[in-house]
Every structure is written in C-alpha cells, then in structure tokens.
C-alpha cells in the first residue's frame, strides 16, 4: 500500500500494489478479479439502505446537511434544447443560488456548451463538468469518444463525466470497458474523470460492485451512478454499494475515489438520506464536495426552500425561488 501522500493521485497504476496493477493484464485476469469480489445480497443491501433512510435529521443537523448538500450539487442541464442563454442562466444560479446559501460544486453541460459555462462561472470556484463519450448511450467508436472528451477539455471543462460501454460490460468484455476508460482518462489531462456506470442498465448489485471496481482500477477519479436518462437512476442501495466500493478500494490501494449519485434525487429528504449513507458507510473523508457530489437539477430549489423554512419557520411559495 502506498502512503497517504499519493491519495487522489490520478496516475493510479503506478501507485497501486503490484497484485492489483496486474489485474488488467488480460481479459481473463480482469474477469477473475471482478468475479472474485464478494457478492452483494440484494435483500440485505436494500434493507440496510432502508434502515439508514429512517435516520431522523433535525434542527442544527438538518441545517448543516442542507448547506453541505447545496455545496455538493452538480447543477445539471442535459437537454437537446439547451442553448447558451439557458446555460448562462443556470450558471448564474450555480454561483449565487440565493440568499446566503453556498455556491454549488459544479455545473454539468454538454461538450458544445462548455465554453459558455466556463465563461459564466469564471473566478467563482464553481467547476465546469461536461458529459462526453457519446453520452448517454456510449454507442460510438473509441476514437469519437476520445475526441468528444478532448473537445470538452479544450473548451475548459474541469471535469469529464464519461459513460461506460454497458454493452461490452454486460457481454463480459471487461477489458474493452477498462481500456476505454484508460484512453478517456488520458484525454482528460488535468481534468477529473467521473465514470458513469449507468446502474439502471447493469441491473444487479453484483454488477454495480464489479463496474465500480473496474472503473476505479482504470483510473476513475469519481464513480457516478447514472446519466439521468435511464430509470431507475440513483437509488439508495446503489449509492450504498458504490460507497462500500470506494471505501474498500482506498483500504486496498490508498487511493480515494469520489462518488456521485445522479438522477432522481429531487427532494431535500432524498439528499439528506444520501448524506447519511456517506456518513455511515464511507465516513467523514467523503463528506466534502471534493469527494461526493449530487447530480441534480430540481433538487437545488427544494434545498433552498427547506433552508429558508428552517431559518424562518415558514414555507415560502415557489415563486420566491428562482428558475435556473
């Protein structure tokens, strides 16, 4: 195991223990490793997530959690109808969500709008994330995926949210998925790489655990649940399993990887349940925007509404909260 100075180092193969570095030597070794991970019992995982979902977060804890959640939001617009105007408006909100609420972690847009977003958030500390690699299906050549990534990075993206090839994963071609992640990681340069597993299409929790490890082994800085275009998106049990994966991966390699549930997180209650999962599974080290994000759009206004309710004791109508 490497010392902690290397935590967060992106060039992971060199920082890994020898045995894990050899894992991707061939399709067979990779497969043997991923299938050797402990299984996930669906009933037990669902039950654990449900139990943590009953935590009662009130008063000061709730206020703290709301601000933490706001600071972890990747405020997202991923529509065919997105325009420069729409993205600028969202960026303005991201930097100053309202009142004394903290700014969000990042904005997330399509590659062709990265330049607009980068300009709009410049100097604010809000990062620009871009989906890439033939998002959301990932159905294109590696060449296209790499140039899609390069385009976004060149336009000023700080973070790349790539999708894995679920077809390759489900057909057992783990090495193809691995190599694509490695190639995209290389194209990222200094940009952080979030790897979207699209857990709704992977279907089983065993697959979620394997895909998490596969992405981390290939150099992911973050693992992300979903594109938001497939249902189910981020569920509590899936986030739980991914948190267990990053926790175990750091124990094994010394390298910390972030987690981003995305899609379907709409209410403050949902967001707080996710924070409880982080708190009781991975722990304090992940309770910062650097290591945990919430991919969402409508969530932000609900957080702001609950924040105001907590401060004033009253709910204000939706007209008092701005559109993105």
């Amino acid at each position: 195991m490497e010392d902690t100075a290397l935590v967060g180092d992106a060039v992971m193969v060199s920082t890994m223990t020898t045995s894990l570095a050899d894992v991707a030597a061939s399709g067979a070794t990779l497969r043997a490793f991923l299938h050797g991970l402990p299984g996930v019992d669906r009933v037990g995982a669902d039950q654990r997530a449900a139990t943590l979902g009953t935590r009662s977060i009130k008063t000061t804890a709730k206020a703290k959690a709301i601000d933490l959640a706001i600071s972890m939001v990747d405020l997202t617009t991923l529509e065919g109808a997105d325009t420069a105007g729409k993205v600028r408006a969202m960026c303005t909100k991201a930097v100053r969500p309202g009142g004394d609420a903290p700014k969000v972690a990042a904005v997330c847009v399509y590659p062709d709008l990265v330049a607009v977003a980068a300009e709009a958030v410049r100097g604010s500390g809000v990062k620009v994330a871009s989906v890439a690699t033939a998002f959301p299906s990932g159905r294109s050549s590696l060449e296209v995926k790499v140039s899609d990534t390069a385009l976004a990075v060149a336009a000023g993206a700080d973070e790349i949210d790539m999708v894995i090839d679920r077809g390759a994963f489900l057909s057992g071609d783990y090495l193809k998925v691995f190599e694509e992640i490695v190639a995209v990681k290389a194209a990222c340069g200094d940009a952080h790489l979030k790897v979207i597993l699209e857990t709704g299409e992977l279907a089983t929790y065993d697959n979620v655990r394997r895909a998490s490890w596969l992405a981390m082994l290939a150099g992911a800085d973050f693992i992300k649940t979903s594109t938001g275009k497939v249902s189910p998106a981020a569920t509590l049990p899936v986030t739980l399993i991914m948190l267990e994966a990053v926790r175990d991966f750091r124990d094994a390699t010394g390298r910390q990887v972030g987690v981003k549930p995305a899609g379907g997180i709409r209410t403050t209650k949902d967001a707080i349940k996710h924070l409880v999962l982080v708190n009781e599974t991975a722990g304090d080290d992940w309770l910062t925007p650097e290591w945990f994000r919430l991919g969402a759009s409508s969530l932000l206004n609900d957080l702001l509404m609950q924040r105001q309710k907590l401060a004033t004791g009253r709910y204000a109508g939706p007209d008092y909260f701005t559109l993105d």
Partner: protein
Amino acid sequence: MMAIFEYAPAPESRDVVDIKPSYGLFINGEFTDGSGPSFKTVNPATEEPLAEIASATSDDVDRAVQAARKAFGVWSALPGAERAKYLFRIARIIQERARELAVLESLDNGKPIRESRDVDLPLVAAHFFYYAGWADKLEYAGFGRRTTNGQGGTKPLGVAGQVIPWNFPLLMLAWKIAPALACGNTVVLKPAETTPLTALLFAEICRQADLPPGVVNIVTGAGDTGAAVVAHPDVNKVAFTGSTEVGRIIARTVAGTDKKLTLELGGKAANIVFEDAAIDQAVEGIVNGIFFNQGHVCCAGSRLLVQESIQDELLAALKRRMGTLRVGDPLDKNTDVGAINSAAQLAKIRELSEIGESEGAERWSPACELPDKGFWFPPTVFTGVAQSHTIARDEIFGPVLSVLTFRTPAEAVEKANNTPYGLSAGIWTEKGSRILWMADKLRAGVVWANTFNKFDPASPFGGYKESGYGREGGLLGLEAYLDV
C-alpha cells in the same frame, strides 16, 4: 475531532403516553388491587420510577383463574367468526395506538424507539391479524374435526396460564394471547416484573375492544406470582418464555399433571459466515444478530462462527461497523442500541464478560460514551474464543459477541450444534446448495439464510434440546392451544 455531520438529538415525544401513578391487576375485565406488596417499574435508561405496580398473591391468581374459567364457557362457545371479530378489533386498535405502545415499550424496557416502532409493534399487530384469520378456520388446520361427542380437533384446552419475559414484552404477549384466544381458550398472563406497562395498556385495549370480561386476565408480580399461575390446579395449559433455569422448574411443577406445556427457553445461536458470503450484508447480519434489542434476544446470534480464511477481513469490517452504532437514549429516533433492561441483567452481563477476559479471550468495544445514569453496556466482541470458553457456552443475553473460527462446512455444523441449546442459527454464503445442506444438519428450530432475526407470524418458532419444546407461530402454533 468533531464529526462533519453530527446528528442532532431527535427524541420521540413521550407526551403520547399517559402513565398512571399506580396500576392494579386486570381480572374479569376490571382493574383490582393486588394483595401482595406493590413494586416499582423503572425506566432502565434513567432509573426513574415509572409507576407503582400491584403484586398478585396466589389468592389473586386464583381469582384470575376463576374469572378465566367462567369466561371460558362463553368464549369457547362463540362461533370462530365471532372470536375473530374481537381479535381483528384488537389488532386494529394496536395499530391505531402503535405510537403510544411503542413509546411505552421503550420507556419500560429500554429498547430503541426505532425498534419498538419498526419491529415490535408491526409484528404485534400482525400476530393478532394472523390468528384472527385462523379463528373460524380451525377445522382446516389439519388437526381433524371435533368428534360427535365434542372431543379433539378444534376443541380448546380451557384456561391457559402464560408467563412471559421482559425482552419483548408486548410481542411475547401477542405470541401467547393471540393463538390462545383464536382457538377458544381464555388466559391468565403474567408479564415480567420489570416490564409490565404495555401488558397493562393491552388490558385497557381489551376493554376498548369490548372483549368479554375474564377472557384475558393480567396478573403482575415477580417469580412467586408466575409460580402460582403455573401451579394453579385449574389451569389446563402452561406456556412459558424465559430462561432455561426457570423452564426446568416449571417442567417439574407441571410434571404428573394433565396440563399441556410449551417452553421457549434460552439459546446460544451460531451465526456461520462462509468465505464466499456477501461480506457487507453478513456484517449487517452479525450486528443485527447480536446487537438488536441489546442482545436481549433468546435467538440472538451470540456465537459468530467465521471461516478462518476470511476472519481478519471480516473482523476488521465488523469492528468498523460497530464503531458506527449509536448507543444511548432509547427514545432518540437515531439510537441503535438502548439500555440494558435491569441492574440484575447488567450485573450478569458484566460478570460473564469478566469471565471471558479472565479465561483468555480478547475483548473489544468501540469507543462509545455511555450515559451516567441507567443501565448500560457497550457493544462488545470477544475474539480468540474456543468452544471450551464459558462465553461460548453460557447465554449472556446482552450485547456481547463471541467469535470462533472453523475450516470446513462439517466443522461449522459440528461447532454450531455443540451446545445444549438449539433455538436458532444463521448461514451466510452465496452458495444455495450449501444453505440447504447446512439447514438439514443444524439442530436448531429456526435456521436463517443470509439474514438474521427475521420474524413472521406465519412462521413457527421454537427450540431443540434445552431451548424448549412446542412451537409458537404459524399453523403449528395452533396445536399448542387445541386438544389434539
């Protein structure tokens, strides 16, 4: 260091319960004074006295049995569908008053409100619903029909004397009363001395449901009261849940009489984790197996048998998980582990833990702050335990886990069965065929696979060997209350 995300206190309000300063005995539908010296029931989390409780002497017990005998004529003559109406009504009232019952249970017992609210109360109501459904279908339960002279089949036994423990006060009451009433028996029930309050609130619910007087009688008191219930000559059926030691005394008392007897006694269950288990869920199952209800569970998974090849990994994960357990105020909605039920039980847990240490097992508890007042014991794990250690043999009935290892499935079975008890066992493996093989070999009344401490009214529960005899719950649970 202050944690980043500290949960603020989230106490359930106790305003929902109205605890009277004193309680009498519930006999023939009325609350009456007891002739014995009254005693106090205390909140084990604070040692604050909650109420003064009447103590029933053998004369009081006799009054209760007479009331039950009188009511038996009316109750057993009712058509099953009519008895079912009362049971359904009781089940619904329990659901309506669930919050009140849950808070009262946590106050009197010390168990976390999350548990009384999410586990105990739903199961209590489910038990009444389940047996209400059987009341008019007894002829189809497989015990035959009553003969033309009125014998056998669906014939109730008469008056049931029931003595229940303090670990699941209301749930054990439900396990006892629901099948007895469904089959047409009447009951005299003695709740545990340290946890009488929910049984007394249940008495109020019986009145609210217009249950005919004498069908349910509740006599409070200590061991003497229980002994009087068991020994009463006009009791036809004795049902007891509690320690093996008291179970033996009861079996002796009942021997030579024509009373029917069911005993649900102690346990020292093995929770067996194989190297191919789903580790994260197995850790949850181990935690749930031994720290649920502070380990005050007769079927608790108090012996962890872990395959030697994964013991380091598993123990590291278990200890990390134990570090997140929240011990404290039972009424706080975020509490995982509450108070030990009594000073006496705490003393017993401490004594056995000290024996564990002195015999050479390695003791470990996570750093946790325990309240100054009340009865508390931290979640504790002993490693390096052998079958010959006292803590691997004796039931501790507290949040104390003994960890042993095994090498092969056969050795796991051998060690699991190497106990005078046989109430429950758990198996953790992703291999289905091994689950079936193990379940066949384990001499335990309940075998859980990839889960632990799961209960359902439709599933029978009971033990092998010194864990008792007879089954409660499900179809088999009817047999104990019918003249079959």
